């Protein structure tokens, strides 16, 4: 079954959708969209470093994404507005990453594969890493779920309940770095934030509980992967962007239905 590249691609897409769904909900609730972007963009620098050092791309991307996310955490609230800080860091990381890749003479690498993903080239060992990482993210967020929700509502309410919101922020940061690392192969660094935000945002009109929203987001992400891959096959379009396009169309359709329902 896994000999078929379309089957491997589909499983990879669904794995990423599962990791991105609960995390993406928190990214939306906490207004961290740009934070996800910055972390993902930093991964290209990690890719360049891991190619130069001949280590695993997953490991390199994971480490640099984590360093980036921790740097943002550390610098927040020290003079610059969050979006300015993230604007500086996200684009600098991307630029430094692209420059670093150009130094790698001797190795011919397909930059497009890292920027937009190369889901059709997912190998069996890639699948193991993707599903392992996704399981880790879901377990991590599931374990901290109630505390994360409380810290998301209000920091002082969290403190009053004996929860340290800074620790919960670290949990999300770690989950984000893992998700970025496993999603590179599927949608590439430029579109990872889309897989986090679009399914979660699309799930909102259908949800009455936080858990429901995460489950629906996972469903929408999986459908996007299935339909997007099929469309890429039929229309001969790039697979990663096709998946994101399907997610965006689902978002648009559900938003329209949602607003019609509330206005009547």
């Amino acid at each position, binding site marked *: 079954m896994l000999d078929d590249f379309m089957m491997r691609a589909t499983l990879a897409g669904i794995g990423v959708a599962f990791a991105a769904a609960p995390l993406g909900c928190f990214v*939306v609730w906490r207004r961290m969209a740009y934070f996800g972007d910055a972390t993902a963009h930093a991964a290209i620098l990690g890719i360049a470093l891991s190619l130069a050092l001949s280590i695993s791309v997953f490991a390199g991307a994971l480490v640099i994404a984590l360093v980036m996310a921790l740097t943002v955490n550390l610098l927040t609230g020290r003079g610059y507005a969050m979006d300015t800080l993230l604007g500086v860091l996200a684009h600098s990381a991307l630029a430094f990453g692209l420059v670093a890749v150009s130094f790698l003479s001797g190795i011919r690498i397909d930059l497009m594969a890292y920027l937009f993903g190369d889901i059709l080239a997912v190998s069996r060992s890639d699948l193991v890493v993707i599903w392992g990482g996704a399981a880790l993210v879901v377990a991590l967020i599931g374990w901290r779920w109630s505390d994360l*929700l409380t810290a998301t*509502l209000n920091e*002082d*309410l969290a*403190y009053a309940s*004996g929860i340290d919101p800074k620790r919960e922020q670290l949990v999300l940061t770690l989950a984000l770095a893992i998700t970025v690392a496993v999603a590179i192969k599927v949608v590439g660094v430029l579109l990872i934030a889309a897989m986090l935000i679009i399914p979660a945002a699309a799930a*909102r009109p259908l949800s009455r*509980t936080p858990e*429901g929203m995460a489950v629906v987001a996972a469903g929408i992400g999986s459908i996007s992967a299935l339909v997007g891959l099929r469309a890429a096959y039929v229309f001969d379009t790039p697979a990663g962007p096709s998946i994101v396009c399907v997610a965006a169309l689902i978002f648009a359709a559900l938003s329209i239905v949602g607003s019609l329902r509330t206005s009547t």
Partner: protein
Amino acid sequence: MSLVDVENLSIRYGANTVLSNVSLSIDAGEIVTIVGPNGSGKTSLLRAIIGAVKPSKGRVTLGRDVRLGYVPQKLHIDPTLPMSVARFLALPHGVAPAQIEAALKQAGVPELAMAQMSRLSGGQFQRVLLARALTGDPQLLILDEATQGLDQPGSAAFYQQIEKVRRDTGCAVLMISHELHVVMSASDRVVCLNGHVCCEGTPEVVASAPEYRALFGSGTMGALALYRHDHDHAHDASNHTKKKAAE
């Protein structure tokens, strides 16, 4: 035994000292109100009591097994977060449905259990916050300007609810308020704060204290007071020199 003992508490954010040498204790069942101009460290004092800020000096001691209920100043729940009132009350560690029902009733909004948080009006929201603080059956209820954003009748009704809760449960109340007329009628004790404790005592004592009048004017029990900030006021002057020395 007091519920909370604050001893010589100082709080500093970077080079900025917001509280210096504040001592305060709350006994079971009393209503204590903190008044003071903006930036006088009222919220910082409450946040130190709930453990959200670490003291730079001094300490905060909670009595053994004292249960706190906290109503924050303002709370913004992103409308993208779907959550029912009952769920909001049960976070983070789960609360029995009967207890949630009782807390909502105590807060005067028994009908809201299944409502979505994002659909509540300002007054309903504050009462749901109060209900959340009551789910743990607190011995000390802490409110940080809980009526911010409510109109006059709304805030009067809210304070009546607080008094009723105190009568019914016997919990102590520590609150910050800008509404001096309410404070003066409802409190057992008033603490006037301006970076340090200016004066403290029964409402009558505080209202006639020169330190209080310097901050709030000497109108009819403070009801018409403006938040005047007198720089020739002795306490202010010493405070400012302290700040300079700290820099």
